[in-house]
C-alpha cells in the first residue's frame, strides 16, 4: 500500500544544498586552517627543521667528500702503508695457526652441540627425579620421612645414573651411548676444550688485531673531523627526518610533587647545537647568500667544553640562557621576550662583538664562586663583574652573599660562643644533680653507675665545647684581622692629609683624579664643608714621627722595580699604566711626607688601635695606666683596659713590602714629586675647625653611607645603607623604581639624550659622557627591562630622580661610580645573573670536596689582588706582565703559580705565605725568601691563620693534591750515587749552579733561579723530576730550558705493551754511569734533595769562575772538558 506523499513534504521538497554547502565550506575551511596552523602558525619550528635538514645535508655532502679525501691522503701515507704491511705480515704469519684452531674449534662446537642437546634434557629429568625422591618419602600425616624408603630410592637413582640410557648423535658417529655421569663428564670436558680454543684463538689473533687497531688508530688520530663513515651515519639520520619536537625533559626526583624541572625545546629550532661536526654560520649559509637568521640559529654551541661539564640532558638550556624553554609558538615567546615572562634570554652583543650579558647565566648557579676558571676564556665578563663589585666597593653599601662576609661571620662566631658558654653552664649544673643522685644510698650500684656514666658523658661534652670555644675565639681573632675596608681610614686624616685639599677632593673626587675608585656624590658646598669639618674634628690628633728626606731618583727605581705598579697606577687617561688600586699621580699634593714614609714602611701600622668592645681608639694613656708599653701588633692584640681583641692593624689590603727605612723614605720622596701643583696653593679651609658644622656633617655622612668604605670616628658600627643585591636579578620589573621614566622607558626614549641632565647633576659638563657609558649605546627601543634599568642606573644613578622635586634628604643617594661601558656591562651581567632560581639546591655549585677549597681560595686570591702579579690559570694576564719594564725580561716577573700545589710542600707554603722573607721573623727581612734575585718583592700580607689555611688548601686543591701531605723519604744515596749525582749536577751540559743561587753574594749577582738548599723542605720530589724533564710544560716561558734529559724508551714489561720511559742525561756521561738502569732524572732529584750546604759549596768552588780568577781556574775548565770528552 502506497501512501501519497504530500506536495509540501519538507523531506522531499526542501533543498538542503545551501546548509550542506555552508557546512562543507566551514569544514574544509577548518581543515585548511588546521593544516595551516599545524604547519606554520603554531609550529614555526617546522620551517626551521626543514631548513636545517636542507642546509645540513648540503654541508654534510661537502664534509663527507672532504673527510674522504683526508682519509685517502692518510691511507696513502708511508706510515699507514707501513702499518698496513705490518698488519698483512701479521695475518700471513698467524693465518695457518688461526685456521687450524678454527678447524678444531668447529669440531668441538659440533660435538658440544650434540652433547648439549641430550644433556639439557637429561639434566632436567634428573632434577625432577631428585626432587620426587626428596619429597616423595615424606609422610605428611605424621610429618616424618620414611628413612628406609628414602635410602632405597636414593640408591636406585644413583644406579640409574650409571646406566647407559642416553644416545648422542655426533656428526660422524650416530647413537653413541652414555650414562648420565659419563654424559655430564663429556659435557664439561667439551666446555673446557671450547674455553681453551677461545683463549688460543685470541692469542693467535692478537698480533693481527693489534696491527689492525694501530692502522685504525692512525687514521682516527689524524683526522681532524669525523671519518666518512661517521658522517654518512649522520646523513642517513637526516635523510629520513620527519619534523618533531626535540626537547630536554629533566624530571624532578627530589621534590614532593613529581614533575618536570626543566623542559627545554630549544633544540627544535637550534638543531645544530649538539651536532658532532662544528657548524658555523658561514657553513650553514647556502652558497652565494649572506648569513641569515637561519644560519645563526643552526650553529654549534660555541663552547662545547662547557656542555661537557654541564650536560644538556641534565641542565637543559634555559637554566643558563634564560628564555621560555617550553614555548614553541614563536621566537619571541621561546626567547622569553614578551611581557608575561620574567626571564628573557641573555644576549651576546653581536654588533660590538662582545659577549653581552650572556654570562649572567653562570652567576645563577655559581654565586658562591669568586672566579670561574675556564680554558676557553668563557667567564671573563662575569668574573670582571664579580671583581668590579668588590674593587669598586659596591659591597660597602650593598650586601651581597659572599662578599665582605667577615663582619657577619664575626657576629655569628660571637653568638655561637655565647650559646656554648650557656651549654657548659647547664651541663655543669646537670652533672651536680646526677652525681647527687648517684651518691644516694637507697639505689643499687648499677643505678649509681648509670648516673655516673651520664655525668661523665656531660663532662666530656663540656670539654669538647671548651675546645670549640677556643677554636671560635681564634676564628674571631682571624676574622677581625681579615676585615678590610675599601677606602682609607679617615680617623688619621689629621696626620696624613693636606687639610686644604680635603674639601676639594670630597666635592668631586674625579676632578682631582679621574681614575679614582671613589664615586662622585653630587654634594653641594654646604654638604662638602660640613662633612669635611666632621672628619677633621673627629680625627685622631696624634702626629707621626718626622722622617728625614730620601733620594727621589732611587725611590723611583724602587717604585718601578719592587712591583708597586702591580697594584698602583701612575698617569691618567691614555697615559695610565699599572694596577687597579689607587692612582698615585698627584699624591704629592695631598699627603704629608712623614705619614707617607711610615705608610710605605708598614701600611698596617695604625695611629691608634681600636677596641670594638669599648668602641674606642686606645691611646698611649690607656697602656700607661696598666703600666704597659704602647705596642700593638699581632702579638700584642689585646686591649689593655679589658683584654678584648683589638683592631690593631689598618683595614687596608696593602701588604708590607719589608723595605728598609731608607728605601721607604726614598720611595716616599719620589712620590712627593708626583704632583701638578704646589700643595700650598690650595684654598684655605679653616672652616673645617668650625664646631657648628660638625653635627650637620655627621648627618650627611650617615645619609651617604661613607662608613661603608671608610673607618670614621663615631661610625664604627654603621650598617650598609643600600639594598641587598644577592637576588636583585629576580626582582619583577614592577619593583624596580623607574619613577617618571616608566613610560619613556617603555616607549624607548633615551633619557641621557635630554639636555636637562644638568639639573640632576650640576657637575655634568657634557651629557654625551653619560650617554657614552651605556654598553650598547643609546636605547634603540623599549628599555623597560632589568637590563635597561641596571645600565641606566650604573651610568647615572640618580637618573630616576628625573622630573621629581625632592629635598636633599629624599634624593637618590647612590653616588656616580663613573664606570666605563665595559665595566657597566660586566656589572649588569653580574646583577642579571643574581637570581633566586627555581631549580633545586643540587644545581647550585656548592661542592664539598677539594673543589670547595678552590672556591674558598679564589675569594682570598681576589681580595688581595694576587692575580696582579701571579698567573694562576693558563693564559691569565697579570698587571706586571704588561708593564714596559718586563717586556724584554719576562724572567724578572713573579713566578707563575699554575701548578703551585703540585710543586710545593703545603707545610712549607704555609710558612712562606706567613713570612715570604723566610727569615723567621728576623729584623733583616728586606729580601725575597725564595727568589732573592728578583727585584719584584713578594710582600707580607699579615694573613690570618684562617686565610693562610684557605690559601694553602686552595693551591693543593688546584693541583688535586691530598691534604695533609706526608712527604716520602728519598732513598739514601750510596757513595757511588753521590758521585754520579754530582757529575750530573755540575756537568757542563747542565751547569745547574750557573743560574741557581747558592747564597754566595758574588755568585748570586747573576743568579736567576732559587737555591737548591730550599728544595728538600719546599718541593715535592715527583714535581721536581717532572720539572727538570720539561719545565716549559709546567711554567711556559720559564728561564729553565727543556731538553736536559732525553727519553730512551725501554722495551715493555709484560703485561704492559707500551715501552717504558727511561730518562737519560742529554749530554756526556762519566763512565760510572755504565750499567746504571734507573732514571737519571730520579738520581739527580735525590741528589738535590739530599744536598748539603757543604756539598753545594764544594761543587760551586769547582765551577769555572769569573774572569778575574780565570788564570787560576782555567785548569779546572780543562779538567772538566777532558772528563767530558773522555766520557764521549
Amino acid at each position, binding site marked *: 500500500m502506497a501512501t501519497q506523499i504530500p506536495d509540501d513534504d519538507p523531506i522531499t521538497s526542501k533543498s538542503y544544498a545551501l546548509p550542506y554547502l555552508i557546512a562543507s565550506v566551514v569544514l574544509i575551511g577548518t581543515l585548511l586552517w588546521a593544516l595551516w596552523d599545524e604547519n606554520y602558525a603554531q609550529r614555526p619550528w617546522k620551517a626551521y627543521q626543514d631548513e636545517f635538514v636542507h642546509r645540513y645535508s*648540503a654541508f654534510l655532502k*661537502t664534509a663527507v667528500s672532504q673527510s674522504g679525501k683526508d682519509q685517502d691522503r692518510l691511507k696513502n701515507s708511508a706510515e699507514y702503508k707501513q702499518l698496513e704491511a705490518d698488519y698483512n705480515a701479521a695475518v700471513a704469519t698467524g693465518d695457518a695457526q688461526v685456521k687450524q684452531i678454527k678447524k678444531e674449534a668447529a669440531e668441538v662446537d659440533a660435538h658440544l652441540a650434540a652433547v648439549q642437546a641430550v644433556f639439557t634434557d637429561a639434566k632436567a629429568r634428573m632434577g625432577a627425579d631428585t626432587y620426587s625422591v626428596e619429597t616423595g618419602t615424606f609422610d605428611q600425616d605424621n610429618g616424618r620421612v620414611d628413612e628406609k624408603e628414602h635410602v632405597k630410592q636414593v640408591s636406585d637413582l644413583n644406579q640409574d645414573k650409571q646406566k647407559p640410557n642416553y644416545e648422542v648423535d655426533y656428526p660422524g658417529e650416530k647413537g653413541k651411548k652414555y650414562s648420565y655421569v659419563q654424559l655430564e663428564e663429556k659435557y664439561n670436558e667439551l666446555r673446557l676444550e671450547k674455553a681453551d680454543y677461545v683463549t688460543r684463538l685470541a692469542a693467535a689473533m692478537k698480533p693481527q688485531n693489534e696491527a689492525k687497531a694501530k692502522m685504525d688508530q692512525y687514521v682516527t688520530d689524524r683526522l681532524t673531523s669525523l671519518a666518512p663513515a661517521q658522517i654518512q651515519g649522520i646523513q642517513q639520520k637526516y635523510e629520513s627526518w620527519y619534523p618533531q619536537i626535540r626537547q630536554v625533559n629533566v624530571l624532578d626526583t627530589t621534590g614532593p610533587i613529581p614533575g618536570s624541572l626543566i623542559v627545554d625545546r630549544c633544540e627544535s629550532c637550534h638543531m645544530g647545537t649538539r651536532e658532532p661536526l662544528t657548524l658555523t654560520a658561514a657553513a650553514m649559509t647556502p652558497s652565494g647568500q649572506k648569513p641569515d637568521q637561519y644560519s645563526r640559529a643552526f650553529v654549534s654551541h660555541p663552547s662545547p667544553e662547557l656542555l661537557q661539564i654541564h650536560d644538556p640532558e641534565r641542565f637543559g638550556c634555559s637554566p643558563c640562557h634564560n628564555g621560555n624553554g617550553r614555548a614553541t609558538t614563536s621566537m619571541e615567546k621561546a626567547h622569553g621576550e614578551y611581557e608575561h615572562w620574567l626571564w628573557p634570554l641573555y644576549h651576546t652583543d653581536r654588533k660590538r662583538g662582545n659577549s653581552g650579558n650572556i654570562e649572567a647565566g653562570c652567576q645563577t648557579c655559581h654565586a658562591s664562586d669568586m672566579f670561574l676558571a675556564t680554558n676557553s676564556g668563557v667567564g671573563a665578563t662575569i668574573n670582571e663583574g664579580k671583581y668590579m663589585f668588590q674593587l669598586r666597593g659596591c659591597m660597602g653599601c650593598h650586601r651581597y652573599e659572599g662578599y665582605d662576609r667577615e663582619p657577619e661571620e664575626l657576629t655569628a662566631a660571637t653568638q655561637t660562643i655565647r650559646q656554648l658558654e650557656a651549654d657548659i653552664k647547664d651541663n655543669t649544673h646537670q652533672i651536680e644533680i646526677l652525681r647527687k643522685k648517684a651518691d644516694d644510698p637507697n639505689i643499687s650500684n648499677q643505678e649509681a653507675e648509670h648516673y655516673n656514666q651520664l655525668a661523665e658523658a656531660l663532662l666530656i661534652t663540656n670539654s669538647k665545647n671548651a675546645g670549640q670555644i677556643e677554636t671560635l675565639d681564634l676564628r674571631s681573632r682571624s676574622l677581625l684581622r681579615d676585615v678590610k675596608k675599601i677606602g682609607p681610614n679617615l680617623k688619621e686624616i689629621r696626620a696624613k692629609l693636606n687639610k686644604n685639599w680635603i674639601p676639594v677632593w670630597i666635592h668631586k673626587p674625579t676632578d682631582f683624579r679621574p681614575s679614582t675608585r671613589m664615586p662622585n656624590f653630587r654634594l653641594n658646598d654646604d654638604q662638602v664643608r660640613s662633612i669635611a669639618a666632621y672628619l677633621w674634628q673627629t680625627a685622631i690628633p696624634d702626629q707621626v714621627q718626622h722622617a728625614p728626606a730620601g733620594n727621589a731618583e732611587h725611590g723611583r727605581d724602587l717604585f718601578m722595580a719592587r712591583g708597586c705598579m702591580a697594584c698602583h697606577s701612575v698617569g691618567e687617561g691614555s697615559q695610565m699604566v699599572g694596577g687597579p688600586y689607587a692612582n698615585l699621580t698627584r699624591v704629592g699634593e695631598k699627603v704629608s711626607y712623614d705619614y707617607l714614609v711610615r705608610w710605605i714602611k708598614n701600611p698596617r701600622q695604625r695611629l691608634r688601635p681600636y677596641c670594638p668592645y669599648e668602641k674606642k681608639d686606645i691611646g698611649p694613656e690607656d697602656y700607661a695606666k696598666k703600666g704597659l708599653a704602647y705596642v700593638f701588633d699581632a702579638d700584642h692584640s689585646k686591649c689593655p683596659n679589658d683584654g678584648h681583641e683589638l683592631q690593631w692593624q689598618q683595614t687596608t689590603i696593602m701588604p708590607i713590602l719589608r723595605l728598609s727605612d731608607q728605601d721607604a723614605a726614598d720611595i716616599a720622596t719620589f712620590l712627593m714629586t708626583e704632583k701638578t701643583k704646589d700643595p700650598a696653593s690650595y684654598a684655605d679651609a679653616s672652616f673645617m675647625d668650625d664646631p657648628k658644622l660638625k653635627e650637620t656633617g655627621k648627618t650627611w655622612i650617615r645619609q651617604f653611607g661613607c662608613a661603608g668604605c671608610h673607618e670614621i670616628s663615631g661610625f664604627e658600627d654603621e650598617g650598609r645603607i643600600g639594598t641587598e643585591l644577592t637576588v636583585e636579578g629576580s626582582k619583577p620589573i614592577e619593583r624596580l623604581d623607574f619613577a617618571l621614566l616608566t613610560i619613556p622607558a617603555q616607549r624607548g626614549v633615551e633619557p641621557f639624550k635630554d639636555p636637562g641632565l644638568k639639573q640632576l647633576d650640576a657637575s655634568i659638563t657634557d651629557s654625551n659622557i653619560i650617554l657614552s657609558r651605556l654598553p650598547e649605546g643609546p636605547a634603540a627601543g623599549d628599555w623597560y627591562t632589568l637590563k635597561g634599568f641596571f645600565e641606566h642606573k650604573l651610568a647615572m644613578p640618580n637618573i630616576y630622580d628625573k622630573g621629581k622635586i625632592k629635598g636633599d634628604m629624599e634624593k637618590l643617594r647612590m653616588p656616580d661610580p663613573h664606570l666605563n661601558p665595559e665595566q657597566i656591562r660586566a656589572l649588569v651581567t653580574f646583577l642579571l645573573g643574581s637570581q633566586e632560581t627555581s631549580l633545586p639546591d643540587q644545581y647550585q655549585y656548592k661542592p664539598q670536596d677539594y673543589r670547595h677549597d678552590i672556591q674558598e681560595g679564589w675569594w682570598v686570591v681576589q681580595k688581595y689582588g694576587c692575580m696582579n702579579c701571579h698567573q694562576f690559570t693558563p693564559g691569565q694576564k697579570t698587571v706586571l706582565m704588561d708593564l714596559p719594564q718586563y717586556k724584554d725580561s719576562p*724572567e724578572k716577573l713573579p713566578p707563575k703559580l699554575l701548578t703551585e700545589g703540585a710543586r710545593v710542600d703545603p707545610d712549607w707554603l704555609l710558612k712562606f705565605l706567613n713570612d715570604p722573607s723566610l727569615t723567621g721573623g728576623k729584623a733583616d727581612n728586606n729580601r725575597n725568601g725564595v727568589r732573592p734575585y728578583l727585584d719584584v718583592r713578594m710582600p707580607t700580607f699579615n694573613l690570618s691563620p684562617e686565610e693562610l689555611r684557605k690559601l694553602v688548601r686552595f693551591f693543593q686543591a688546584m693541583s688535586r693534591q691530598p691534604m695533609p701531605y706526608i712527604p716520602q723519604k728519598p732513598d739514601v744515596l750510596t757513595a757511588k750515587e753521590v758521585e754520579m749525582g754530582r757529575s750530573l749536577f755540575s756537568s757542563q751540559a*747542565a751547569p745547574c749552579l750557573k743560574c741557581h743561587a747558592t747564597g754566595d753574594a758574588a755568585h748570586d749577582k747573576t743568579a736567576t733561579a732559587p737555591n737548591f738548599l730550599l728544595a728538600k723542605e719546599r718541593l715535592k720530589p715527583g714535581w721536581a723530576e717532572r720539572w727538570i724533564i720539561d719545565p*716549559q710544560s709546567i711554567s711556559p*716561558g720559564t728561564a729553565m730550558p727543556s731538553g736536559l734529559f732525553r727519553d730512551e724508551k725501554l722495551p715493555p714489561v709484560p703485561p704492559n705493551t707500551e715501552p717504558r720511559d727511561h730518562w737519560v742525561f742529554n749530554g756526556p756521561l762519566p763512565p760510572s754511569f755504565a750499567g746504571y738502569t734507573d732514571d737519571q732524572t730520579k738520581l739527580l732529584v735525590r741528589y738535590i734533595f739530599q744536598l748539603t750546604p757543604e756539598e753545594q759549596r764544594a761543587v760551586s768552588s769547582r765551577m769555572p769562575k769569573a*774572569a*778575574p780568577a780565570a788564570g787560576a781556574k782555567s785548569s779546572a775548565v780543562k779538567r772538566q772538558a777532558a772528563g767530558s770528552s773522555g766520557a764521549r
Partner: protein
Amino acid sequence: MKHANGRVMFSRMLALMALMALALLVSCSKNKGTNEESNAAETKATPVDKSQVGTVEGTVNFTGTKPTPKKIDMSQDPVCAKKGENTVETVMGNAQGLQNVFVYVKDGFNGTADAPTTSVTIDQEGCRYHPHVLGVMAGQTIQIKNDDNTTHNIHPTPAADSGNREWNESQGPGAPPLEKSFGRPEVMLPVKCNQHPWMKMYINVAKNPYFAVTDADGKFNIKDLPPGDYTLAAVHESMGEQTQKVHLDPKGAQTVTFTFGGAGSSGGK
C-alpha cells in the same frame, strides 16, 4: 596520508635543490681551487719565468752619530770571556750604512709561496749569535748550532699576539743542532739565552720569500720578485719600522733608500 606524501615530495624536491646547490657549490669551490692552484703555480713558476721577475735593491742609511758599541761583561762564563772582544751584538755597520735591518715585502704580494726546503742556520759562537738578525720564511727550518764549549739555551719569546709558540731548550757543548721553525709571520722576534744575558738575536718570520737583511754597508737586495706594486718595509730592532711603496715593472730593477735616525736623533737606544 596525502599530506605525508606531499611532504615526501617536498623533501625530495628539497633534496634535489640541495643536490643542485651542492653541485653548484662543488663546481664553485672546484673553480676556486683551480684558481688557487694556478696562483700557486704562477708563483712557483716565477723563478722559472726569469723574463718577468725583477730586483729591488737599496741601502738603509743612518743619519746621526753612531754610538760606540757597548762593552759587555762576559766574566760570569770564562768560556765566553776567552773569545774575542766583548761588545754588544747590536752592530750599526760601516759609515752611513745601517746593518741588521730586516727589509721585506710587507704588502702587495698576494700569491702563495711554499717555504724553501733548505734550512737557515743560527750559530752560537763566542757566546754570540751569528747572525744577529735573521730572516726566514714561515715554516722554513732553522738549524741552531752550538760551537761553544759551554751550554746555551735557546729561548725565543714571540709577541703574545703573534700566534707563534714560545719555547726554551738547552743545548750543551757538542750537542747535535736543533731544528725548529715558526709557523706565523712576525718581525723582530727576540731570541735569548738565559744563561748569558747579553746574548740576544732577532728572527724575522716572513710570509713570502722576498726579504733581505742589510749587510755592514747597509745594503740589501731582494731578487726574483714578480712585477707589481708593493709595500716594502724596513725594520730595525730598536728604531722600529718604516715603509715605502715600490712599483716594479716586468724585468725591472728598483733602488730604494731608507733612512733611520734623523738629524736630532741620538741614534737609537
